[in-house]
């Protein structure tokens, strides 16, 4: 069935790209090079920065696990889930990006559990589906983190 794909938040990640090209999108200050994710489009938040232009920038494809956990119980709204369907736990992972020197949260790809994500192991960002409205024929897209078999950062 054809689906209209809608990003859960517009402008946070690339759309209509192949999996290899999929990236999170942040903004980088032209003055101090600080990166902001979620994107900051107003002013650079570095208090010592005289202020520069905030330019959209793709974040690193790969990073290392800072920590992870899972959600064994259904989160409350506005998380979208069907109360009529048994809850399937998902994994949440915090990923350290070396080039940006920051940590970014995300859900792990479906089927990836905490045991697959030891602290320090390499993961990469891939496109994912957050929720689906079959009646409306729409899906909300998001980003997922997935272990990298080879384990290389680049």
């Amino acid at each position, binding site marked *: 069935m054809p689906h209209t794909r809608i990003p859960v938040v517009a402008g946070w990640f690339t759309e209509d790209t192949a999996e290899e090209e999929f990236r999170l999108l942040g903004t980088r200050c032209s003055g101090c090079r600080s990166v902001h994710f*979620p994107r900051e489009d107003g002013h650079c938040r570095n208090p010592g920065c005289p202020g520069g232009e905030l330019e959209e920038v793709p974040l690193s494809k790969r990073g290392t696990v800072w920590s992870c956990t899972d959600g064994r119980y259904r989160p409350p709204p506005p998380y*979208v889930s069907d109360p009529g369907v048994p809850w399937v736990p998902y994994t949440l992972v915090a990923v350290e990006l070396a080039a940006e020197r*920051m940590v970014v*949260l995300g859900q792990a790809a479906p089927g990836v559990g905490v045991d697959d994500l*030891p602290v320090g192991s390499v993961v990469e960002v891939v496109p994912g589906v957050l929720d689906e409205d079959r009646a409306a024929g729409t899906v909300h897209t998001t980003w997922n983190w997935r272990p990298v078999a080879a384990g290389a950062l680049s």
Partner: protein
Amino acid sequence: MTGDVAVLGAGMHPWGKWGRGFVTYGQAAARAALDDAGIGWPEVGSVVGAQTVRGGYPGYVAGATFARALGWQGARVTSVYAACASGAQAINTARAQILAGMADVVLVVGADAAPKGFFAPAGGERRDDPDWLRFRVLGATNPAYFGLYARRRMALYGDTPEDFALVKVKNAAAGAMNANARYRKPVTAEEVAASAVVADPLRLLDICATSDGGAALVLSSVEFARRRGVADPVRIRAVSTVTPTFPRTVLDLPDIGTDSAVAVEPSPKSFRSSIARAAYEEAGIGPEDLSLAEVYDLSTALELEWYEDIGLCGAGEGAKLVREGATALGGRIPVNVSGGLASFGEAVPAQAIAQVCELTWQLRGRAGERQVPGARVGITANQGLFGHGSAVVAVR
């Protein structure tokens, strides 16, 4: 250093799930604190209410709501909100008014009637609210963040789920002796291990519940206390309400990403440790001077982190302290002898006030079975969503 303010009275409405509104709990706590202080409500020159987001409009105007419930008498009013740190902000507001000579006697009140289960953001489609976004995009509940911190400790320091369970066992033993606590039964390590996993590696009994409750303090100038014949009152010597410094490199609720440390080298000290440090500096004391501490044990693992952040031990040594019994009643530096959040559950705007109530009773030597012998100096520590630090130093 700033001047001291006196704690004339402390009072609570017991924590639990009572099914009434927050005003009832706040009013009961306020009356208990006024009785304890021997102060009539008409003598109060200012009332400061710590707000709750769950009471609808009255919750957002908590100061006046409590004043109305107690009977309008014209006092100056303030309402403050800083999530879990709301109570400390209310105390600090009262302190500033007293030290500035704006009021002699200030009533501080916080109360909540919390829903069961996970805290959730305010309703509506609010895409400019980071708290709404973390639920919508990630389903990241508060325990999810606690789980991330706990696993990080396991990887970095070798903490185990058994270490975390020891915190619950310790706090439940203390809470069993506290009439204001919601949970008053001892808990065993086996019971913790048998409880359901909520956010791996944390189990239900590792994570604090959400509760109803109310706490209040009557604060005054030290001179006023002396005029009332209280020669040696418990005194609040410092209140820390610091924010983080850029770049903040640890994910805090409700962050989806940390700051980037590309441009500025991060502080070697964490935000949480800066909260206590500011309080110590203002009070002119250090962790070695403490008789006891009340810290915000949203999870068992987080209590261990607080040990390190308030300077009871070095980084990574928190689990060793609890294993040795150093932080239990009778240990070198008892922590959460009230029973902590483990025994109370969280009634958000009341909680930081409740921590100071416990210090007050301990420093007066009136804490009964859970008394820390000879208590002279105590600290509370807490952190409110989004970057609200809070710590209070009280002395006698």
